[in-house]
């Protein structure tokens, strides 16, 4: 017991004297809990229970759409109306993920609904010639990367709002008809007459339906791409790739501790060449990691009852993303290895920062489901750049040119990290 106590006291002494290590031990979990909580704060939006903003192309400009907007507002769906002649831009904004959903209300919807209602309420005796059974289709578009729960939740809210708007119109029509009929029969109301007017039928009839459209960019079908595997495989592969930063930092710190760096710096070799050697070796590890996770997604998941990971038509287009993300991770590793003093510091700081970057980057919760502040901060997470690039190719069906900016950001991040490490490594 005395020996355990002695050993414990010694460990405390060591801990207290490693101030940087202590800071990492306490500060990192504190940051982690704040970030993860903030990131997940809006997670209910995924199931459609929180405030959402959608785009609307209002070609109707009638009472139905005005009423629909008002009911959507009550259901916590903010509607941002878009010019009726700007469908291409409307589709692009959704396809790019700037908005997660958009609705097109066709021209003349309100007028046709009014005619249909009149026809139903008058039991075919009115002046309207419209077919009673006609249903107006409201076209709904989703960002291909929007999650299934979010889609389902939003669809339900839209259908309910449409039904409420219908009912409001119907009430208006009914009021009008009743006023006409009551005036004609001079307040002698015959219940049988009302029953004959088709009221029951009218209230049970559905005049509108929300139709979910395929990808706004006209890419692969939603059924094909909308599976969690296609989003999770690249996201968690990136998470794994960024964790290679910790062993890279470990090799630098072990070389420093053992005096190998002293020996290396006395040789006719540049510190940049030495760092490059590490980056190339660990980049190969990153590529193998991605390959392994992709193979698991393709071959193992179907045996576990999960959808298979679907590669793009030319899987080679994924290689630049993996390489750029791998370089960013390796650059981050060299940074950790030159900034930290011990392996314990590097492993704690490294893993915590990767978890935070992953949370901010949308590995755990999609970026669009985060509060606005966190969405802005997520723009600085290298994992978010990687995930964006993967989703553009795998889910949104975009071309290679769409991911060039994300690749450039990852490469610049890597270069900045390596140059910084190079300057410190040579000291």
């Amino acid at each position: 017991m005395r020996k355990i106590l002695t050993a414990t006291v010694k460990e405390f002494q060591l801990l207290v004297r490693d101030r940087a290590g202590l800071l990492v031990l306490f500060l990192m979990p504190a940051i982690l809990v704040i970030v993860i909580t903030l990131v997940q704060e809006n997670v209910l939006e995924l199931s459609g229970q929180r405030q959402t903003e959608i785009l609307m192309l209002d070609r109707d400009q009638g009472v139905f759409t005005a009423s629909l907007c008002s009911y959507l507002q009550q259901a916590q769906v903010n509607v941002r109306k878009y010019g009726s002649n700007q469908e291409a831009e409307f589709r692009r904004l959704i396809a790019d993920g700037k908005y997660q959903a958009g609705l097109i209300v066709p021209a003349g919807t309100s007028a046709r609904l009014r005619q249909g209602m009149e026809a139903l309420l008058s039991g075919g005796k009115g002046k309207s010639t419209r077919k009673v059974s006609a249903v107006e289709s409201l076209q709904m578009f989703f960002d291909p990367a929007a999650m299934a729960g979010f889609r389902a939740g939003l669809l339900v809210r839209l259908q309910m709002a449409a039904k409420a708007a219908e009912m409001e119109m119907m009430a208006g029509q009914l009021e009008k008809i009743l006023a006409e009929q009551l005036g004609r029969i001079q307040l002698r109301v015959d219940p049988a007459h009302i029953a004959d007017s088709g009221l029951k039928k009218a209230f049970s009839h559905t005049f509108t339906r929300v139709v979910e459209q395929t990808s706004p960019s006209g890419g692969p079908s939603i059924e094909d791409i909308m599976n969690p595997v296609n989003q999770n495989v690249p996201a968690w592969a990136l998470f794994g790739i960024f964790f290679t930063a910790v062993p890279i930092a470990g090799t630098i710190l072990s070389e420093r501790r053992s005096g190998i760096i002293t020996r290396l710096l006395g040789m006719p070799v540049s510190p940049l060449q030495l760092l490059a050697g590490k980056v190339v070796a660990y980049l190969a590890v990153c590529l193998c990691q991605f390959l392994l996770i992709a193979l698991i997604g393709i071959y193992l998941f179907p045996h576990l009852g999960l959808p298979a990971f679907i590669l793009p038509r030319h899987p080679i287009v994924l290689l630049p993303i993996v390489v750029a993300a791998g370089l960013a991770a390796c650059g981050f590793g060299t940074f950790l290895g030159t900034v930290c003093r011990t392996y314990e510091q590097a492993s704690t700081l490294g893993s915590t920062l990767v978890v935070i970057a992953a949370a901010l980057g949308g590995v755990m919760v999609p970026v669009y489901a985060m509060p606005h502040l966190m969405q802005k901060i997520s723009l600085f997470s290298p994992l978010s750049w990687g995930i964006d690039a993967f989703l553009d190719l795998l889910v949104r069906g975009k071309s290679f040119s769409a991911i060039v900016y994300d690749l450039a950001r990852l490469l610049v991040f890597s270069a900045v990290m390596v140059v910084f490490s190079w300057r410190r490594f040579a000291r």
Partner: protein
Amino acid sequence: MICNTSIESSTPAIQAARLVKRYRSAVRPVLTDFNLTVGAGEFFGLLGPNGAGKTTILSILSGLLLPDNGIIRLQGLTYGENRREIQRKIGIVPQEIAVYDRLTARENLIFFGRLMGLGGMRLKERVKSCLQIAQLEEKANQRVSSFSSGMKRRLNLVIGLLNDPSILFLDEPTVGIDTQSRHLIHQELKRLYRNGTTLLYTTHYMEEAQELCSTIAVLDDGRVLLEGPPGKLLEGGGHLNLEELFLELTGKQIRDD
């Protein structure tokens, strides 16, 4: 003491003039106006108590550390203009056992040899020769993690010899090893000296310095207190050995910094 049979060149192997070095955290400079000249083919020993500045001098002379001021020339070349050329001519044996534990002795030698610019048959020959010098031929393909500290020290030494350097910097190369390994390292250092290699080495072992060095300098507070061949230094003062002289010059007070 041993003798170098090579002809001394007129250009000193190592020349340091007016060196100044102050570490950021230190109250006073480690070196102030430090001067040192080591002739070609000399076996020069730097002796001094802890904190005297031995390792700092060795690091500056071997190009690992930049001085705040002063001039350094190695065989007439400066680091500013001829860094790569100097690095090809020198060998460094650090105080730490600076080898990769998870690599074998041969893999370590090949790795460092390649970084020194060796390749092909030349690399093969040098690796073989170094393994022979260190008497590690039979263990060449074993991981260094399985080696004793003496074996690791021998490997640490021969890595510094891979490029057949004309100037070799050694920072306490025999610290903490068995007698046999120390003897082997001494024999190798003597052989290098006989073959004309300039050796600059630091040690705390006075008898080792007395036995090996052609010239020694006793340092304290970043200054040279005394310099000359060990035999001559002992002649004048009537000291029995180098340790007695050293203690007289630097005092008996324990130095912990």
